[in-house]
């Protein structure tokens, strides 16, 4: 099987710093054009103008041929869901023709047009890479400023739709896998502490009550209105670094104090992941994080952190549906319903990646 489900724009298949804990980093700049009201209040003909101005600015970038620009109304529903699963757009975004996305062919840079703000420019990097990510977006934003004038006001900085996003307009989000802190019960305390310091920390994978599906959490800056770009970056670097340290220590302490039960969790996960025939999305996320825990405690070999990160994207429902609709994968005839076919393919995708993974008896 030649990985038909890994497209060429999969930045998440690369390795990055601290990948045993941090899956990915996103740095996003929110910008609005002068002379137009924000998208929440805009009229459609003005929105059309904004869309052409922004797309035009992309077309004038030096590496313009690397960008694909598309109106959201031209993306089918499965395409929109994939974009949402990758974090390019928010799920539930309207598909008015004046909303658009621009994506660089490596997937590292993406932009939304006329969502909350006229332009939101994002850089995605694997692992903990806040500064490199910010350099990437800043460079592109600077080139775009040659073409378009962004709203700003002295004292406020760049003006954005969200009040807390004024200033630099920068939102830094770090996606972390925290099984250690989940298992030893310290997570609640850590979350409260970060919230008290003005950071936002929330469960990833959609659940609205803030609890994470599995142990995936997203840490981001609560506001970009104070200080400047570099102080915001260093604050986030410190916060994320602290959380990574806490998680690493928790994993080691857990294994030192309860080795048998940790081994049980990890070994059950790898066996299920390798041999089950149907694996649902929730179960997959849980299995993968326990495998990650095992890998980083030396209990599992034959797989890398980046493979596990990439799997988290590839097993998501729209990604799976896309592969099924491609028709190149043959699923057993007795698997009838659509949901079962998805779970079956998800198991196949996981098992393909885990084929060399094995248990390593450390003791």
């Amino acid at each position, binding site marked *: 099987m030649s990985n038909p489900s890994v497209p060429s724009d999969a930045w998440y298949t690369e390795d990055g710093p601290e990948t045993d804990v941090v899956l990915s980093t996103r740095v996003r700049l929110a910008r*609005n054009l*002068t*002379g*137009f*009201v*924000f998208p*929440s*209040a805009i009229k459609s003909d003005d929105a059309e103008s904004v869309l052409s101005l922004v797309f035009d600015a992309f077309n004038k970038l030096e590496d313009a041929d690397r960008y694909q620009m598309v109106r959201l109304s031209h993306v089918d529903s499965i395409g929109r869901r994939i974009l949402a699963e990758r974090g390019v757009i928010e799920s539930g975004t309207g598909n008015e023709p004046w909303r658009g996305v621009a994506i660089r062919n490596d997937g590292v840079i993406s932009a939304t047009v006329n969502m*909350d703000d006229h332009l939101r420019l994002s850089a995605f990097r694997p692992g903990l890479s806040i500064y490199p990510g910010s350099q990437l977006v800043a460079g592109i934003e600077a080139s775009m*400023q040659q073409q378009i*004038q*962004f*709203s*700003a*006001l*002295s*004292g*406020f*900085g*760049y*003006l*954005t*739709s*969200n*009040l*807390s996003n*004024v*200033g*630099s307009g920068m939102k830094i989000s770090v996606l972390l896998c925290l099984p250690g802190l989940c298992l030893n019960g310290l997570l609640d305390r850590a979350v409260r502490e970060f919230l008290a310091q*003005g950071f936002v920390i929330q469960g990833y994978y959609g659940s609205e009550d803030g609890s994470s599906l599995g142990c995936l959490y997203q840490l981001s800056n*609560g*506001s*970009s*209105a*104070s*200080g*400047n*770009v*570099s102080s*915001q970056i260093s604050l986030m670097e410190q916060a994320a670094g602290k959380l990574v340290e806490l998680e690493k220590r928790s994993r080691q302490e857990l294994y030192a104090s309860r080795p048998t039960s940790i081994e049980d969790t990890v070994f059950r996960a790898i066996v299920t992941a390798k041999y089950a025939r149907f694996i649902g999305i929730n179960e997959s996320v849980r299995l993968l994080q326990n495998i990650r825990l095992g890998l980083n405690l030396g209990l599992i070999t034959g797989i890398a952190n980046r493979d596990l990160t990439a799997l988290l994207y590839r097993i998501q429902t729209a990604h799976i549906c896309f592969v099924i609709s491609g028709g190149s994968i043959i699923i057993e005839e007795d698997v009838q319903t659509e949901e079962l076919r998805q779970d079956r393919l998800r198991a196949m995708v996981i098992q393909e990646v885990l084929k060399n993974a094995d248990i390593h008896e450390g003791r």
Partner: protein
Amino acid sequence: MICDVCRERPAVIFVQQVSKDSSIELHLCEVCARERGVSTGENKIDITLGGLFSDALEKPGKERPRENCCPVCGFSLQDIRKHRKAGCADCYQHFRGEIISLLRREGIELAYTGPLPTKLEAFRTPQVDPENLRAELQRAIEQEDYELAAYYRDRLKSFGGGV
């Protein structure tokens, strides 16, 4: 029984609106009734019930002042508070003080010292051109809309131009 609207004068008229699943009852004094187009005389009662009830029920007591809206996008301060979102760049000018204190209450101190767009000084749009602002200010004064006039005056000040 005192008036449900002003809560000062005695109620002299009783209005009842009955709809499919609820009914609303109001006791009004003569002054409030007349203000809302309900007359106690022999003339036919001509009323706009919708306006009558929403006004009276939302804010018993004093009459509500006209809402302060951003002149460019029409967002009111309430909209901004509720959604924590501005409607346009001019909201930040128009509601400058309110937005600063709104953020402060959430523990966000607005103190951005980072870079601004390189061309910030050079650009002019109809909304920020001092010449246009001066004309608008003049017009507002002529129309005796002092609230609007103050807004244009402050904007002119913020660009460093004299009034």
